[in-house]
């Protein structure tokens, strides 16, 4: 039971990291990006080829180094960001809304088929494996203690990511990104370089996605194309929508509800004879129903995006310059958490 709980929590924190990344792209700057899982996958692949050592026949893949896990993760994140820079530079130039989504969907399918068909890259559809308990031997952990360590690692990384995105979210950068989401022509009229800002948000979001992918590779110890069918992105979108689009805490809650809650709950459905695909199908149906209900009845999500609240100046005293600086300054800078 405890093992099960540890694995659910580990997976949950990894998905929460990914969802926080996607939330920057969709929640803040407002681009419905369907290529996101491509960055997650690249993060996972790069981590594997940088850590699992040279390929042995019949498998083939590039690099095949044995770098320390943290270094491999860092390089993987950079790779995801570079890929996002290329895709984003093309897709964000003139396309918005559904047209942007279609182009990113095209991009992720190209990557998906390429990774599957071009075997020398990441061993095709068979994928990569062999990353067992990263950093476990350095730290002298045996296989029974290791899952706890990895859970701790994932939660720690999640916390760091959460602190950083919360900071960004409440900053002027985060607020300005929201203005692009709300009305980008007005944002341009008031001096914002829309393309540059959207591209920045896109690359940062993809980098966080790649980080999630890298941790995912360490957790699964393997990765292949079936692990990243573009449908997986929808699960992340569902989590963001249910939790509260644009809200970081909401996204974490959304992952808890939709990824950990819903997915794990449906795992205990009774098996139906001769219908082994019933449970996964039912899970997707249930996800769809929950999504529809939320869009209809609570589109802002469980924990809606926080708005800057300005207190009544009368409450802070007549000399609002002196007393206001603590109160008002803080409100301004932690506005959109």
């Amino acid at each position, binding site marked *: 039971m405890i093992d099960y709980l540890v694995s659910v929590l580990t997976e949950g924190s990894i998905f929460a990291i990914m969802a926080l990344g996607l939330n920057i792209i969709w929640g803040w700057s407002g681009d419905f990006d369907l290529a996101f899982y491509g960055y997650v996958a690249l993060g996972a692949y790069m981590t594997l080829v940088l850590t699992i050592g040279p390929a042995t026949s019949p498998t083939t893949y590039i690099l095949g180094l044995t770098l320390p896990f943290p270094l491999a993760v860092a390089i993987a994140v950079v790779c995801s960001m570079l890929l996002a820079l290329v895709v984003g530079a093309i897709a964000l130039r003139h396309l918005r809304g559904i047209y942007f989504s279609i182009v990113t969907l095209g991009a992720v399918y190209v990557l998906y088929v390429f990774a599957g068909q071009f075997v020398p890259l990441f061993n095709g559809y068979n994928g990569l494996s062999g990353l067992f308990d990263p950093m476990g031997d350095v730290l002298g952990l045996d296989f029974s203690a290791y899952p706890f360590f990895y859970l701790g690692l994932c939660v720690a990384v999640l916390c760091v990511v959460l602190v*950083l995105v919360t*900071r*960004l979210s409440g*900053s*002027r*950068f*985060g*607020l*300005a990104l*929201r*203005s692009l*989401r*709300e*009305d980008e*022509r*007005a*944002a*341009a*009229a*008031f*001096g*914002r*370089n*829309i393309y540059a800002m959207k591209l*920045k948000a896109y690359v*940062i979001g993809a980098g966080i996605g790649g980080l999630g992918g890298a941790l995912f590779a360490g957790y699964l110890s393997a990765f292949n194309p079936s692990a990243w069918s573009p449908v997986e992105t929808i699960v992340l979108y569902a989590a963001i929508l249910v939790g509260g689009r644009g809200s970081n805490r909401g996204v974490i809650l959304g992952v808890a509800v939709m990824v950990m809650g819903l997915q794990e709950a449906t795992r205990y459905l009774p098996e139906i004879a001769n219908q082994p695909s019933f449970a996964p199908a039912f899970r997707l149906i249930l996800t769809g129903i929950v999504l529809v209900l939320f869009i209809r009845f609570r589109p802002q999500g469980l924990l809606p*995006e926080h*708005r*800057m*609240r*300005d207190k009544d*100046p009368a409450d802070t005293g007549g000399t*609002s*310059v002196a007393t*206001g*600086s603590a109160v*008002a*300054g803080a409100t*301004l*800078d932690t*506005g959109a958490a």
Partner: protein
Amino acid sequence: MTALLEVQDLHKHFGGVQAVTACSFTAAEGQITGLIGPNGAGKSTAIDLISGFKVPDTGTVRFEGKEVQGKTPHVISRMGLIRTFQSPREWPGLSVLENLILAHFEPRRERFWRSLAGPSRLERERANDKLIRARDILDEFGLFHLRNERAGILSGGQKRLLEFARIRMAEPRLVILDEPMGGVNPVLGERMATAVLGFVAAGTSVVIVEHNLPFIERVTDQVVVMAEGRVIAEGPFDQLRGNPAVVDAYLGEMPTYDDAES
């Protein structure tokens, strides 16, 4: 009187339609310049060309002596030329106060690394000054009690006021107002006339596109008349009243401001 905005021989066509043909006019510093003309005269296209939202085929636009044609909207905006749109374009999901705070663009503070590091002490103080200024402006426009509401829930008239409040916050050198009186009732109209005059007092020159002629008569120093993509007349409104070309193209029987009042 020095020309703040100089538009010379601007052309723009869409397919076979010549939207703007040889459009030339100037807007002087410290003045309110009206831009009038019948529907389809090319006024809105001219504004788009000046503010960078569309690229002219040929012609030059000089703002404070610098050529800006073909530059992107944000570059022109940062130079101090801000425009509004025919329908109010507030940021609906953000609060009214946030709309105001964002209207004043601070390039340094919005940088990624700066945002990650957090504001410096000086910036914190400036942010506080800015907040106080935003409150004052909202108070002036009667929106103070709505400052924590989402801008999307405001009424049409309040959105117009918010648009004006944002311009006050941004303090541009020149603002181009695209039909600010659309759907505005007379009482609010009076308030907006005062606000337009207030822009000039605060150092922002104004170009205003409007169909409400009594309003144009009341606030403008100079009027440019466009028809069929070209400028057909330019001068103070009183002079244009007697200009046969203008009467023919646009004015016809024209009420005076006093008629509209009664």
